[in-house]
């Protein structure tokens, strides 16, 4: 049967939904609030051991020898693994780009500080750490390379000698007549930018409990895992195991934002388990490990960018040259963040031509991993600064300049030069809503009056497209060629008519279990509290990727609605048979199946399900008697990437405009955000409470990236930001209250017209904050081109502008 998934709320069979689209309190919360949810470190299994990992103190060194005998003899120690075990049991890991993977623990050499060289499983973490101290490793230090430009030069130390170069990938993309656009432009604006390494830092680090049976080779993995299926496939490939021997049970976890990492931690814990006779081995990453050697670092970027503008203020071309320092290998999939900008390269603008010169470079730093937004946040910071530079040069108000370049509503679906298709948008409406909410004209008056008083103040208006519902083809350019990210769900009724939904993903914080309950409850006119959502592990679950790329809300809604449609059709067929009529005659209305207008010809869900289960003899011959249905949703009409990386990839395009006002203390460089207002459009808002929460979280991370957060390495590749005293996550004091307006332009392609919104505000916030900072600095003739815009960096710019004795460029030794 073909399933028609409702494209809007009013297409649901229930004309008065109580939950979908409403502000619904989350069902997950009572268990979380009372400390009842089992996070990975809460797991206790019989005979469980605890692992600790010995890590390289050098950024680059050969391992001459490793002696673990003393450690093995320590009390409580049950197993030790080294690179020899990795060589024995692992294949070279997959990577992106291809050919930049290795084994873990390291075999011949280490290529970043913190790289595992050995690991111990003991009866407590305390004892395991004691045992690490008894492992002797003989290192031969090698010269490290920590600057990507140095890494690209002839004669640089090579991170992976076998590859003969540190350039993992260098590609030049041209979309449209971009050279022509720049040659004939009335104005060309050029600038360089530096975006420093930042990363996810969920409050829970990674953790796992692995059981690898040495006899059957069954590998059972528990863990704080964002995508159970992706992780399981990765481990199966790494160990050369048939995929049906690997079972992943992802725990509810404490956030991820893409950057949970963990694959190598699982590999280590699994090998320890196998060596310990299959006993469960728990490894909990501590915060120092997360910061220096985990999934935590992303977007270490050097940009040169230029914008071509015609005489009418229309942008005609946008070129970006990016050197992306990916660290020591491609196992972290940080390359994806360099590819994703293709999905929204030109933002919400009608720029017809673009170019992207992309170099991914290896250095002796932690391999880069994913982080919320996956690359566009720095990209949009660059684009929006250039837009402001252009607007300022042409004497046009920055909001107005943007308005004149917006893709108009009637142009959607709109294919951008780099190939992705935006589904829908009302960009001017969003701009107007943001400006109105911000009181933009009053803000400008405030700014001008403050400036007249000698204060350094600025107002920034920034906009971004926030792509949603990722597909792998967005990353084809970095070696991930497939297409299709399925998400499945099974909806079932039991013999009493109680509803259960089986899904394949764990709780991560975005409220999807509530969303699932909303959908099923409204479809079948149930009370939301009566719907139970159960997570299955990977061997039992329907195909599932889980959260990521702002996909899960849309994908799971599609899957659940599809399953509801199938199940309803099944049940209508059963009722039709029992009532001796045709299925088309039977309607589902307010949780009852029956002939409309005939009160005696109605059956409750419980009656139908009960009949199916208990009286299959009454059912039409050959009919599947289970009152359940499964549907696997995949984004429709995705296309493989062509030779320029063009593909219909991310399905939805949400969009936002943020207005930020800042005041900078010129003597200290400290920034205070004095106003934050935004409007965003993510289509149908299935639960506005959750959407707003995601926005708030994205804003905080965006402010962190713009003003506070940076991973710092010294010249020897030693990480200097190894604790929360140095890597500065914003507290409540650093995040202003924001005012929000919602615009709703539904997607024509998704269930109920919702768009992906989980990554949300992090796409736009760094751009908006930097626009405001640079508006404040503009009268001084200086520009902040590096994130985070720390007080010191801003002070140097301002002092330089005022011609103070202080250096305007920092001394290299003290460079942050």
């Amino acid at each position, binding site marked *: 049967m073909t399933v028609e998934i409702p494209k809007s709320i009013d297409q649901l069979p229930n004309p008065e939904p109580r939950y979908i689209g409403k502000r619904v309190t989350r069902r997950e919360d009572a268990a*979380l609030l009372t*400390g009842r949810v089992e996070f990975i470190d809460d797991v206790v299994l019989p005979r469980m051991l605890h692992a600790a990992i010995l890590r390289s103190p050098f950024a680059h060194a050969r391992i001459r020898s490793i002696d673990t005998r003393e450690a093995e003899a320590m009390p409580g120690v049950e197993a030790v693994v080294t690179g020899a075990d990795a060589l024995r049991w692992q294949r070279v890991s997959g990577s992106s780009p291809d050919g930049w993977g290795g084994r873990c623990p390291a075999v011949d050499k280490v290529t970043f500080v913190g790289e595992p060289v050995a690991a111990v499983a003991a009866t407590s973490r*305390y004892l395991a750490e004691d045992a690490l101290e008894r492992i002797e490793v003989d290192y031969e230090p090698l010269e490290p390379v920590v600057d990507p430009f140095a890494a690209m030069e002839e004669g640089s130390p090579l991170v992976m000698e076998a590859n003969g170069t540190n350039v993992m990938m260098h590609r030049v993309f041209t979309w449209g007549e971009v050279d022509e656009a720049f040659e004939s432009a009335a104005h060309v604006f050029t600038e360089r930018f530096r975006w420093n390494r930042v990363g996810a830092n969920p*409050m829970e680090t990674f953790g796992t409990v692995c059981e690898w049976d040495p006899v059957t080779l069954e590998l059972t993995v528990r863990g704080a895992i964002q995508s159970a299926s992706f992780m399981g496939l990765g481990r199966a490939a790494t160990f050369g195991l048939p995929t049906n021997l690997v079972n992943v049970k992802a725990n*509810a976890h404490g956030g991820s934002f893409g950057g949970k990492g963990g694959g190598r931690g699982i590999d280590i814990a699994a090998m320890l388990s196998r060596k310990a006779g299959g006993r469960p081995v728990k490894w909990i990453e501590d915060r120092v490990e997360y910061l220096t050697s985990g999934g935590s670092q992303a977007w270490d970027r050097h940009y040169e960018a230029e914008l071509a503008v015609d005489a009418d203020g229309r942008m005609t071309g946008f070129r970006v040259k990016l050197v992306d320092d990916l660290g020591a290998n491609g196992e972290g999939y940080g390359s994806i963040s360099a590819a994703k900008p293709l999905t929204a390269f030109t933002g919400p603008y009608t720029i017809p031509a673009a170019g992207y010169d992309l170099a991914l470079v290896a250095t002796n730093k932690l391999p880069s991993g994913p982080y919320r937004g996956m690359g566009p946040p720095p990209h949009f910071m660059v684009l929006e600064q250039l837009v402001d530079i252009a607007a300022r040069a042409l004497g046009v108000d920055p909001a107005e300049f943007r308005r004149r370049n917006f893709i108009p509503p009637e142009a959607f679906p709109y294919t951008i030069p780099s190939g992705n298709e935006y589904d829908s948008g009302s960009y001017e409406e969003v701009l107007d809503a943001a400006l109105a909410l911000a009181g933009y004209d009053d803000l400008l008056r405030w700014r001008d009056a403050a400036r007249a008083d000698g204060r350094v103040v600025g107002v920034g208006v920034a906009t971004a497209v926030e792509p949603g519902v990722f597909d792998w083809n967005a990353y084809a350019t970095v070696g991930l060629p497939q297409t299709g990210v399925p998400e499945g769900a099974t909806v079932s009724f039991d013999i009493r008519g109680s509803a259960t939904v089986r899904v394949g993903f764990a709780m991560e914080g975005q409220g999807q279990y509530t969303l699932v309950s909303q959908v099923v409850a409204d479809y079948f006119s149930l009370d939301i509290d009566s719907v139970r959502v159960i997570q299955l592990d990977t061997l039992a679950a329907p195909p599932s990727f889980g959260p990521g790329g702002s996909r899960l809300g849309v994908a799971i809604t599609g899957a659940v609605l599809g399953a509801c449609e199938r199940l309803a059709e099944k049940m209508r067929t059963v009722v039709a048979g029992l009532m001796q009529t045709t299925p088309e005659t039977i309607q589902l209305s307010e949780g009852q199946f029956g002939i409309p207008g005939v009160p005696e010809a109605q059956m409750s869900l419980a009656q139908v399900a009960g009949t199916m289960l208990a009286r299959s003899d009454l059912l039409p011959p050959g009919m599947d008697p289970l009152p359940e249905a499964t549907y696997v949703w995949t984004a429709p009409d995705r296309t493989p990437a062509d030779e320029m990386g063009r593909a219909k990839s991310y399905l939805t395009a949400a969009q936002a405009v943020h207005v930020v006002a800042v005041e900078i203390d010129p003597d200290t460089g400290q920034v205070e955000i004095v106003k934050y207002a935004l409007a965003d459009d993510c289509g149908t808002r299935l639960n506005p409470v959750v959407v*707003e929460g995601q*926005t708030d979280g994205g804003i905080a991370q965006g402010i962190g990236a713009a003003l506070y957060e940076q991973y710092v390495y010294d010249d020897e590749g030693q990480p200097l930001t190894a604790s929360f005293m140095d890597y500065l996550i914003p507290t*409540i004091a650093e995040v202003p209250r924001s005012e929000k307006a919602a615009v709703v332009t539904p997607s024509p392609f998704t269930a109920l017209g919702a768009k992906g919104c989980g990554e949300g505000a992090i796409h736009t916030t760094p751009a908006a904050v930097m626009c405001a900072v640079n508006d404040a600095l503009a009268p001084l003739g200086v520009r902040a081109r590096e994130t985070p815009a720390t007080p010191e960096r801003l002070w140097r710019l301002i002092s330089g502008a005022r011609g103070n004795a202080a250096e305007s460029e920092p001394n290299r030794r003290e460079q942050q």
Partner: protein
Amino acid sequence: MIGERRIRVSVNGTVYEVGVEPRTTLVDFIRGDLGLTGTHVGCEHGVCGACTVLVDGLAVRSCLMLAVQADGSEITTVEGLEGPEGELHPIQEAFREEHGLQCGFCTPGFLMATYEMLTDDPKPDEDEIMEVLGGQLCRCTGYQGIRRAVDSAIDKLGGTPPADVFGAGDPGEPDDPDADAVGAAPTGEGSHG
């Protein structure tokens, strides 16, 4: 091997007598020896506050205390907030209603810090609220929902001390000779050498 010390602690009103290694941190003791895993570990260097519990009524980072230091103390953890029938405490209810949590990992720390603040002062001013909340990190919520939740909790409690919501008042004195002592959970991760 450094010998174990026997300590006696009252946690959420239950008295435990357990042997611990001196180096065992209080958070590892609570989570591992006592099996009370609602308190979480986020950093082990005292910055994130996920491990916040009350020791003798004061909010402390339990990663920065040793279990042996808690001998004779009364500890309150998140498990001690709910009512006898599992009813959410008004502070918990406020967090739920105001979307003050997303992944929930940092939440017990915020709850305990809020609990202490409102025990100390039922109507804290803006500065006080920001001071206390500023000592806890959250990466999911961006803090707006948390702030709404705390404001709501102040209203809900309306001056009632948080400990009195379910009529329980103080748990028993830890050195009450008639109080039954409970040993540690038979299996647990962590601290035993």
